[in-house]
């Protein structure tokens, strides 16, 4: 099948392209990119007023399978990804059981193939059972296809074990992704510690709970020369520490989640559990500084931390509610609304953070529109309004704080290996 995407602005940061070009796809690959291409047999996609970018890559999702299929499955997660413009997703190993061996990585690969929508890559756990006590068989995980290791949901609290993980992972050139949170400092906290936690009478999570681990991890990256990737950065202090690490030339990268550049703690005032996440929503100042860190490329990746939870997990007392929100479908609208349209990031800067940058960190030959590459392509309109309703979500869960909002930024077509896997009904 041949596809011809016409009249769109091709945004391909990997090749420093941002101009009006046509993209011609044949046999699942990008065949040609140029001005005024025509082909009589090709199916034409009119990308007028749209950008044409590499398929988005999310390096931080939770697809809950195996173990929590009532929240999400690889199938429903893949549909959510496709709807959000993502053609590649790396999913975190905090499943039940945790992804800590070859067989489970293979299970995810197999499921992903069976579903056949997007590429779902496994992230293996750093330690067996994510218990922080013994290293997982990292070499075997990588051999089976794991693209990174992480105990996401918890930090590896034993500094010696993390040191060895960073050292050992160097042999495979994979990043060690750390969820930075000191569990003693975080305690039973359910939101950011500050004025609003005082007002609501909810236990707070101090910023230092994140920052002390970011600092420690950076020092261990310095010690080992290992590749450290800091997940979901939420505070000013973390940003300063990452800046320092980069100034030292350390192998440290970082990501921010869309909710951390679009929402602050004041939104929790009604105890709506869809605003409960970890790390928690922080102050207005932090939100501002996350945006700036994205602009300055201190944070080079936007990752969704897509964390589906069912109603039984969320429609409960705030203290008992699960942490996290679904993020794949709302990521692009939020990037448009809060980063591109206000001019915080240029189109190319923004797209790089969801394509080439995560691809580089995960060593994936993806995230660009080079000729002969697999045709993973998104056609999206930065200025088109989308109304976020419960029905908007393809995910099995709808735990989103953005329900009821109208945002700008609409994914129109998503193409995976030359095949249209999502098309906006309102296109």
């Amino acid at each position, binding site marked *: 099948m041949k596809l011809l995407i016409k009249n769109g602005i091709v945004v391909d940061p990997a090749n420093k392209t941002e101009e009006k070009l046509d993209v011609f796809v044949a046999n699942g690959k990008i065949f040609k990119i140029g001005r005024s291409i025509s082909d009589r047999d090709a199916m034409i996609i009119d990308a007028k007023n749209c950008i044409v970018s590499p398929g988005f890559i999310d390096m931080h999702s939770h697809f809950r399978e195996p173990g929590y299929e009532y929240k999400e499955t690889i199938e429903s997660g893949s549909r959510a990804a496709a709807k959000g413009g993502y053609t590649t997703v790396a999913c975190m190993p905090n499943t039940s059981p945790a992804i800590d061996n070859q067989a489970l990585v293979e299970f995810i690969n197999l499921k992903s193939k069976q579903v056949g929508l997007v590429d779902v890559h496994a992230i293996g756990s750093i330690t067996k059972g994510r218990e922080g006590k013994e290293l997982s068989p990292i070499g075997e995980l990588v051999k089976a296809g794991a693209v990174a290791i992480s105990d996401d949901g918890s930090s590896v609290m034993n500094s010696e074990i993390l040191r060895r993980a960073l050292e050992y992972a160097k042999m495979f050139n994979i990043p060690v992704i750390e969820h930075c949170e000191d569990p003693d400092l975080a305690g039973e906290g359910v939101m950011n510690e500050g004025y609003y*936690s005082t007002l*609501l*009478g*909810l236990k707070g999570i101090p910023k230092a709970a994140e920052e002390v681990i970011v600092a420690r991890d950076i020092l261990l990256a310095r010690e080992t020369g290992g590749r450290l990737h800091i997940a979901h950065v939420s505070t000013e202090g973390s940003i300063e520490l990452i800046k320092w690490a980069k100034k030292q030339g350390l192998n440290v990268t970082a990501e921010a989640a869309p909710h951390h550049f679009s929402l602050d703690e004041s939104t929790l005032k*009604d105890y709506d559990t869809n605003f409960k996440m970890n790390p928690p929503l922080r102050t207005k100042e932090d939100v501002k500084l996350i945006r700036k860190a994205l602009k300055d490329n201190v944070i080079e990746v936007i990752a969704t931390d897509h964390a589906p939870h069912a109603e039984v997990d969320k*429609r*409960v007392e705030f*203290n*008992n*509610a699960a942490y996290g929100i679904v993020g794949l479908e709302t990521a692009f609208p939020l990037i448009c609304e809060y980063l591109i349209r206000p001019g915080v990031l240029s189109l190319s800067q923004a797209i790089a953070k969801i394509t080439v940058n995560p691809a580089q960190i995960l060593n994936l030959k993806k995230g660009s529109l080079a000729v002969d590459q697999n045709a993973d392509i998104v056609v999206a309109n930065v200025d088109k309004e989308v109304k976020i309703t419960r029905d908007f979500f393809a995910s099995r869960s709808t735990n989103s704080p953005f329900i009821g909002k109208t945002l700008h930024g609409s994914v129109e077509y998503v193409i995976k290996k030359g095949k249209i896997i999502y098309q906006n009904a309102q296109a």
Partner: protein
Amino acid sequence: MSFRHLITLQELPKEDIQEILNLAQSFKQVILRPIKKVPTLKGKTIVNMFFEPSTRTRTSFELAAKRLSADVLNIQMSTSSVVKGETLLDTLATIEAMQIDMVVIRHSASGVPLFLTKNIKSSVINAGDGMHEHPTQGLLDMFSIIEKKKKIEGLNVSIVGDIAHSRVARSNIWGLTKMGAKVKVVGPTTLMPKEIEKLGVTVCNDLKEGLKDADVVNILRVQLERQKKNLFPTLREYATLFGVNSEKLKYAKPDCVVMHPGPMNRGIEISPNVADGINSVINEQVTNGVAVRMAVLYLMGGGKKDEAFN
């Protein structure tokens, strides 16, 4: 005035607070009579749902409801295990199906009363939620102050103790600052919630300084479990630094009013001679609690003031 729910004093307008306090005065007369019952809420059903152990507040609400001739159902939920939200919603649905009119709820998790208002049709009264608010306690504390001082405006009120974990402190702060009192919160740095001064209070970490010129001293209960979390080193040290005894009370005005929401740890946050001394209104607070809750239930039941006392 009639309001549908009573969840916080933060959101209750000053005029409504004033009306409740005025009406409570009339109800206090009722409960001091030999026949302590009025028929105003006859036919209404009130459910006391307590997800946390409480004797004082629950019996106070129960008595208030009974003296208004309402039918009262007491439900004490298990507290040994974490109460799952599913159970909470299911329990609510069951109770609601019994055609009740009002729910009085006490829960260890902040925000649960608000959660109820979104999920049931009945009126909801917050009888204390986590560390958030305890509005009827705030109201009865204000009532007790007015009884002795004839006013609230311009008074120096010192709230002493574990401010961070106290719903009583928060409701007092909202209510008292609205009514024009100057509020000081006094306690160790580790038991002060962040940015509490933004609520319009002065923070003080020294007891003598904190009690200085106080017209009212409201002493909060200190929970033993806070010590286990290293929020202070020992109970003895807490008593030394923040326990109110007659020596320390001398820094307050001689005619100050001493209050405590109970139950007291005698010898820790309050010495027995202060608890039982001439400045103490601790037992009157209990009586006043019934009057104030009668006023709240009455107004929420949709009653008009003149009907109550026929």
